[in-house]
């Protein structure tokens, strides 16, 4: 249901920010698993997905920083990470005017190796919003947006409308500044109008890195990774499209779950246990705490994913 301007309130904004955090968080295990399934770590596909994974982590941080500037700390739990069928949280591609699922099919929201279904889903998630030049609509329910771009456009509009509620310097997390030397800020330190500039900057970073400034453009120079991204000028959508246009790289052989050994099950369970702990710490991190063991656990989860693939086991996060 579309909302009128005078119906939009802080509750709507916070729900949108919670949804944004959930969507950014959801992509990380999904992309991460696809990346680690690739045998050749020097391959373009591996490197491109890795750069996107790192930026999704950045986006999660940015969303959380924006949310905290509006007095809300995103929460995470097992329900944040459903990987079933073709349902990608908060996105209904059929609402997009040109319904991209006709182009990117088949696709799957299930954790799996980098294959046709995964790369199609990755393109769908990052599918550009075709700029209509109009003012973005507000929707009551977050899943009423047809693309991430449209969703963030509405979010920005809503953030501007409620700039008076911005309180800077609250529960801000800054883990990636050294990777973006040309970006002036990754946190919201100002309040009110000054804070809004930072909020809009952070939204722009998310939107532009994800899909670029409308489809074919390169992402803006200040938003580019200055450290470890070989294709820093390309959006996520363009990176995934490059992978899709080429021959998909070899992935680790998968075995049927009925063939799993006790060690295989153990590796899967380790990943699920660690991810459950990590989900809890993630919420703590973005609510102003400094949870012990967060960084090593984050790194360990990647290792757990690879250990699964190398055993022929499809990773599972929950």
């Amino acid at each position, binding site marked *: 249901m579309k909302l009128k301007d005078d119906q939009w309130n802080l509750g709507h904004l916070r729900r949108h920010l919670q949804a944004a955090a959930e969507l950014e968080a959801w992509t990380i295990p999904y992309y991460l698993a696809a990346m*680690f399934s690739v045998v050749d770590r020097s391959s373009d596909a591996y490197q491109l997905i890795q750069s996107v994974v790192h930026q999704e982590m950045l986006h999660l941080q940015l969303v959380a920083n924006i949310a905290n500037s509006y007095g809300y700390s995103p929460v995470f739990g097992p329900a944040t990470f459903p990987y079933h069928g073709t349902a990608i949280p908060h996105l209904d591609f059929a609402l997009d005017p040109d319904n991209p699922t006709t182009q990117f099919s088949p696709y799957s929201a299930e954790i799996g190796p980098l294959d046709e279904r995964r790369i199609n889903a990755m393109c769908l998630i990052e599918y550009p919003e075709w700029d209509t030049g109009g003012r973005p609509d507000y929707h009551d329910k977050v899943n009423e947006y047809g693309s991430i771009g449209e969703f963030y456009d509405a979010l920005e509009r809503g953030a501007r409308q409620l700039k008076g509620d911005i309180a800077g310097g609250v529960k801000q997390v800054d883990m990636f500044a050294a990777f973006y030397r040309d970006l002036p800020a990754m946190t919201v330190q100002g309040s009110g109008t000054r804070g809004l500039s930072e909020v809009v900057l952070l939204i722009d970073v998310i939107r532009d890195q994800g899909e670029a400034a409308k489809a074919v453009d390169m992402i803006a120079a200040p938003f580019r990774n200055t450290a470890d991204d070989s294709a820093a000028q390309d959006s996520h959508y363009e990176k995934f499209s490059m992978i899709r246009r080429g021959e998909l790289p070899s992935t680790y052989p998968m075995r049927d779950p009925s063939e799993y050994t006790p060690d295989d099950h153990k590796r899967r369970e380790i990943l699920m246990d660690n991810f459950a702990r990590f989900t809890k710490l993630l919420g703590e991190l973005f609510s102003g705490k400094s949870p012990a063991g967060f960084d090593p656990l984050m790194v360990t989860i990647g290792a757990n994913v690879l250990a699964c693939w190398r055993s022929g086991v499809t990773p599972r996060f929950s």
Partner: protein
Amino acid sequence: MPSTVFRLHPTINFARVGTSDDYYLSPETSAGLPVPGGGDTAGGLPIKRGTDDEPITSDDLRDGDGNLLRQAARFRIYAYPFTPPDAYPAGAGVEVYPGSTLIDGRVVKDVVWTVHLANKKANAYNVVPSEGLRAYADGQVPQLRNSNVYGTVDSPLRLSQLVIDPGPRAIASSAGAGEAVAFDAATVAGYSDRAGGIAQQPDYPKSFPQDSNDRLFAPSGPLDSLGELRTDERGRLLVLPAKGRTAAQYDEYGDPIPLTGDLNNGGWFDDTADGPVSATIRFEDGSVQDAFGAWVVCADPAYAPQIRNVVSVWDDVYDAWVRELELQPEICRGNEFQAGYRPSFSADIYPIFRAAALQRWTANIPELAVKAHRAVESIAATDDPDRTIMSGLAYVRNPNEPDELSVGVPLMPLSLGEAGTDFLAVSKTQYFFLEQWSRNRFDPDGESRLGPGEYLDMASLSNCLGGRYVPGIEVSYPIRQPDLYQTDWRTSGSGPFRPKPKPLDYRSAQRGRPFLSGGWIPLHGITDGLEPGDMTKFMSVPWQTDYNSCSIHQPSINTSGRNTATGNPLTLYWSWPSQRPDAVYPATAVVKGVLPPRVWSIRGPGTLTNDPKSAATFQRALQAVQQWDRIGVVLQGTAITRGDYPPDFFLEAESRLPSEGQSVNVVAQWPFNANPTAHGG
């Protein structure tokens, strides 16, 4: 019945230059690792002069005048029962010195030690950063240094003008600890007569730079010695290095020839050196027996002796012996690693984990990596590998996958690689051990099986820079070549890892005729052994310019300026982070146990720059030659006397580079970038 053989240990040991007359002794423990009975003290600390094993403190780094102490290389003799074929590790060996009684009843009366140091750098071939060892392949050699001096590498003119060769020197244990024999022009050459005495060779054709140059630019004093021999209180050999001096020729305009680069400076000499070490043991019954000899290398100071290299010279040498010489067939046979082999967690796995965690003390590693490395270090032998941060070896660069040598983050080690490659990888043997561990095929309780002499071999080499031989700090890429060693160790009794000296008949030396030749080079089928100077000639000349520059670089420095690495081509990485400290924590700036911001190890006047890639260096090469001795040394907190620091801190002490009140290059959090060039690269 087995015979008794005698072996010198370490097989390769390292003296290190300093500006003081005083000295301490080479470490006999392995960098960063626990020391048996050593409490919290990490291995790698040098030893106080006059003691068996008392580690130095920060008070021992400099003398009363502020001069940096030299490090003497100490050699010991071990007796082994020997029945061929030999195996490694022997796990045996008993140290002998004058007064020792052997199992067969013989009593050691005296030992005559012979050492021959030389410096062949100026007559050697250029270091080629993009090629390394390959520059010697297919019958080729790189361009000669000082090509203005006519001739081949073996021409008498070049040898007499460019090789620093004082000849051999000998000293008897019975001479006592007060006796010194110098490798200078004034001291007569001498060597063991193999009958228990010392033969003099007054006609030995010594050569020093001043012999063929009317005057030399000597910024730190005359280069007139390569070191000296002494013995300690038990009659063990001490090889003291020279004082880190350099000399340069003057050009036709009367100016000192400028230092034009890092590696191959024409017209310049330094006083590092290397050469064979031998010992003749004389017994009370009048009999004599030679020990299997060793090699000494006089190299750069150890500015961070306890910070372990992820890949050390030991890792490289051991890898070469395991894979190419079947040192331990149970590990590798026919160049195939054996799947049933179970490496020891403490000896084979933990050192890699420990090394990763120690990098933070000499490099500006970001906090996330510090925490991750700490998690790596905390892995215990009893942990299930699948439950650790090293699960699946997800972040270890695989040396068996050449393409991964171009992949940066998050693969480790993240420092720069060897010639022609972007990033460093652990050795193939190290990787095999890691794989076995990750598959739960390891020995969690295994203790070191090395005998005391074998332990010294390992410890000595483990304290040196491996992997990134461009060209390196102590030794370079040839150290991995099998023909550098005595490979008949199973039947000869020499034990492994022992360099093969070329037989030299000093009786044939003639005044005015160079005694040494161009010497051994790799990949040319030269199998008759090494001459003095044949290890250090592959290093930069002078060493100070290379030490200065090898701090932080773009990966393209290894690939002729063309970027082949993943990520931003301007991103900077560390060159020799464990051995050449980049960013450090000064002990004097630690307050109440809280670490201060990092500073560059090389800082103060003459270091300011606007390009981050040279932020940690002297901006002028000549300054590096003149002020290398002012750089501080990173030591474990408990070894620093003026303060109370915890054992898990490794802090810089005794820097003489003033920075108070100075503008300094700020240490940026990694990743950080070099300034772009005009063409963007």
